[in-house]
């Protein structure tokens, strides 16, 4: 605070003197540039590439032509040929986002002698400069320091020595070391490029143009990556940081000042804590604003049939934001979506007047150009020189996905009969979640150590997307011939890679309500009806069929499907006694459920006691690795069953054809026969609810 005000005054003094000097030269040419010379240039932006080097999906192990730098490369080539005077800049969130990124950072960390695949690609594309995004901090400061070959001046972060890194300048303006009180990257850089300009007579002259770049990340990195950053770095508000350096950048000769704002647009009152400070950065004396973080398109897409402007941008004050032409408070701005899908292009004309380059504002245009920019339908081709650049890393990532996990199982874990009492694919997830939450409580919430920890999870893949859409892991595993699980398999057991573990504290009454809500998935079965009744008429929301489990099956319950919704849960027992409505339970689940997903009574964020940055998928993976051997013997008693009832007519469950043997191997006596297929291709299995 103290130093800031003093520095501002000193800076003002220096700037005034510096600004006065050129005027002393008088009008006319300076360094040989004739008055009235014009230069047209384009600032090109990529943002939020998120390690999408090739357009590829490492989970499904198939190409994805809607994303990827191999196609961005094609956009860059065309934009450069249209604009020979160009500056290619990246707005951050580069190194994290795909399995490739995780592989090179965590599973098989890239050594100092090598360069990250995404940086290799950017070096090949000859970027001119880059800023940081919040995701650059996901893998920790040591990793970031190494892959950028930057000494952060932080004692606990080893100095890198000649490590592979971007060959273009990197900047970050608003993050400093706590001990050093200095920015960990260069707070700004001035890039000099030689451009072809047109002198007043019409002749071509080569002129140097200096572009100053700054970069800003959301202050929320201190929360999002608290574990990696607390005590080591601190953040300043973006506007405060910009104001600190813009005068200095100008006085050091920059003709243009460009802000790489890893943040979008928000018209709320300014706060240094603001996540999306772009609107306010536009007012700090800059010439161009590159936006990112929000993964949106700005200005409005120009290609035929392109998407309409995002409602959140449309809602911004029209007096400040022109989303058609791409201006924020009169400053040209672009946001090039994400994953390489778009290239931002800001075309500007500068005229040399009075010894400096003056932006001709009426000649500025902006565009967020997408893969289908030519006619709105045709996807640009991938640049064929691209894939060979990163072939080694790409193949290694694919091999990693298929690698052994380090755990075996002696039984098939499937969801074909999850809705009639099979827990083979669910119980292991519940066990992993309980293990994780108990460990967490022991370490961080000792006051709650006496409260029973239970868990719930759902059969996410149980017919929702068609008659073959069922979880089926290690179908050939047997006790005499156990199967080895692959690194990908936790993704089959826990389908959603975007869920984080959370735990809630509830009462027995809440537990009963939760179970009743799950039990809504069943139709109400009329035991006197002779017509065929479908036990689960729709699989649309089967992800809301939570199955509960406690260690050693201490929690058990039955579902009476002859009852109406709300009255189906019977014999709800914990540790041999009926569940007391006032008893406390801690339930391990995921952030979707804990935050209100599925509208379970009272489960709306208010009961959450644990929020974790760890993905449920990772928790399952780590648990499997730690126990190494999964056996059917440890997993074959379900926590739930139906309240037995004899029905006058057939009751069916729709599932994948040809799986009766699976039910038999599981000892599920209530699955008595496989019937004909229905119109959608599901086989109708006969269910005897008296068994």
């Amino acid at each position: 605070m103290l130093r800031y005000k003093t520095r501002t005054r000193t800076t003002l003094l220096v700037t005034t003197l510096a600004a006065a000097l050129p005027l002393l030269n008088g009008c006319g040419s300076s360094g040989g540039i004739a008055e009235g010379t014009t230069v047209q240039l384009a600032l090109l932006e990529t943002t939020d590439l998120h390690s999408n080097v090739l357009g590829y999906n490492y989970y499904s192990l198939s190409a994805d032509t809607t994303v990827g730098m191999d196609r961005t490369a094609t956009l860059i080539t065309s934009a450069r040929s249209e604009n020979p005077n160009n500056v290619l800049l990246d707005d951050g969130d580069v190194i994290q986002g795909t399995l490739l990124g995780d592989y090179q950072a965590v599973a098989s960390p890239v050594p100092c002698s090598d360069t990250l695949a995404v940086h290799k690609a950017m070096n090949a594309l000859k970027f001119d400069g880059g800023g940081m995004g919040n995701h650059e901090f996901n893998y920790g400061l040591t990793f970031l320091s190494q892959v950028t070959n930057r000494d952060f001046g932080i004692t606990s972060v080893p100095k890198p020595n000649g490590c592979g890194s971007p060959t273009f300048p990197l900047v970050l303006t608003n993050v400093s070391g706590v001990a050093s009180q200095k920015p960990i990257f260069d707070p700004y850089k001035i890039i000099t490029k030689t451009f072809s300009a047109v002198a007043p007579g019409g002749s071509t002259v080569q002129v140097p143009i200096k572009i100053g770049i700054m970069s800003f990340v959301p202050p929320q990195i201190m929360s999002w990556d608290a574990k990696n950053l607390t005590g080591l770095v601190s953040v300043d508000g973006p506007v405060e940081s910009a104001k600190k350096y813009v005068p200095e950048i100008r006085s050091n000769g920059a003709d243009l000042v460009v802000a790489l704002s890893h943040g979008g647009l928000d018209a709320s009152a300014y706060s240094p804590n603001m996540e999306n400070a772009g609107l306010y950065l536009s007012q700090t004396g800059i010439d161009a604003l590159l936006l990112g973080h929000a993964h949106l398109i700005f200005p409005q897409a120009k290609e035929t049939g392109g998407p309409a402007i995002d409602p959140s941008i449309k809602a911004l004050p029209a007096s400040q934001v022109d989303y058609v032409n791409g201006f924020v408070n009169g400053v040209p701005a672009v946001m090039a979506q994400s994953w390489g899908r778009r290239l931002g292009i800001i075309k500007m004309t500068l005229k040399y007047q009075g010894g400096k380059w003056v932006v001709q504002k009426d000649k500025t245009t902006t565009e967020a150009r997408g893969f289908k920019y030519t006619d709105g339908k045709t996807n640009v081709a991938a640049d064929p020189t691209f894939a060979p650049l990163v072939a080694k890393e790409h193949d290694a990532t694919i091999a990693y996905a298929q690698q052994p996990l380090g755990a075996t199982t002696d039984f098939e874990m499937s969801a074909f009969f999850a809705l009639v009492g099979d827990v083979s694919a669910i119980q292991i997830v519940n066990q992993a979640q309980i293990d994780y939450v108990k460990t967490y409580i022991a370490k961080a919430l000792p006051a709650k150590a006496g409260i029973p920890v239970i868990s719930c999870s759902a059969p996410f893949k149980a017919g929702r997307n068609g008659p073959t859409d069922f979880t089926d892991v290690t179908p050939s595993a047997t006790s005499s011939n156990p199967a080895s699980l692959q690194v990908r398999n936790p993704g089959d057991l826990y389908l959603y890679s975007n869920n984080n573990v959370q735990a809630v504290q509830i009462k027995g009454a809440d537990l009963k309500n939760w179970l009743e809500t799950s039990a809504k998935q069943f139709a109400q079965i009329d035991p006197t009806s002779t017509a065929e009744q479908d036990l689960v008429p729709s699989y649309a929301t089967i992800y809301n069929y939570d199955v509960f489990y406690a260690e050693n099956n201490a929690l058990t319950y039955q579902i009476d499907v002859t009852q109406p919704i709300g009255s189906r849960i019977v014999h709800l027992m914990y540790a041999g006694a009926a569940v007391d409505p006032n008893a406390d339970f801690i339930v391990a689940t995921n952030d979707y459920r804990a935050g209100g997903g599925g509208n379970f009574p009272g489960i709306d964020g208010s009961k959450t006691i644990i929020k974790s940055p760890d993905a449920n998928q990772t928790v399952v993976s780590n648990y499997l690795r730690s126990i190494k051997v999964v056996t059917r013997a440890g997993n074959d008693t379900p926590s739930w069953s139906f309240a037995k009832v004899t029905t006058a007519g057939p009751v069916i469950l729709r599932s994948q054809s040809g799986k009766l043997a699976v039910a038999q191997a599981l000892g599920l006596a209530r699955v008595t026969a496989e019937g004909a297929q229905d119109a959608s291709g599901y086989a109708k299995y006969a269910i005897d609810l008296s068994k």
Partner: protein
Amino acid sequence: MRNNCLSPRRALIGITAVMLCALGFFAAGSQWSSIASPPPASAEIEAVALQARWGQSPQAQWQLRQWAEAGQAVAQRELATLMASADDTRSEALMWYVRAASNQDAEAAYQAGEIYRAPIHPEQRDWAKARQYYLQAAQAGHGYAALALGRMIKNGEGGPADAETGVMWFRRAAERGNAQAKFLLANAYASGEGVAKDMDKYYQLLEESAEQHFPPAMHELALLAEQRSVTHGAHAESASHLFKEAEEERRNRWQQIR
């Protein structure tokens, strides 16, 4: 694990050092004192608070306390947040939140409500006070306070369960742009709880919440997109993109659900 910079002993050393510095600075003629210059703007106080918290700057911490003692509501609230982040000063945090709330700081009133609703020591729970502080903040336009109050009322915490009034507060918070409230409001419209069932409003609110990166909304929107092309709203993105987006945000948004 935790840095001890907020312990009383270190604070005292820090304060002494800073006072010596400050004396030197005053001697240099700078008009920096909070007594002489106009009161600092909210953004300025927050900038100092950033330094106090993440930069662990003793000068910034001292400045914040000066402003707080002088009655600056924003400084009182920021000081409370600083106190709340460390075990040895957490009990002082509530006191500062209450003081800031009495000076009409809505964020402080909300935080006081949070502590009274679900304190670390369960015996300190006071649902009546929680509702009172949430109400103060909600009436001043605080989105999360309106959400929290709505939940207490809907769930019957500190009073009879009243879905209609609870959902009314969700709507107030949603109108203030609160993504989490939009999600709960969407749920209410889908189920007809506390409000007439309206699937169009459900889809619209769900999309808005997902756009603001609220994780449960991103997840649900992706699930819906899997089953049908989403034709509501200004854009229709494929389910795989929505899941991809949600996966990227997973690392950042893990604390976002309140």
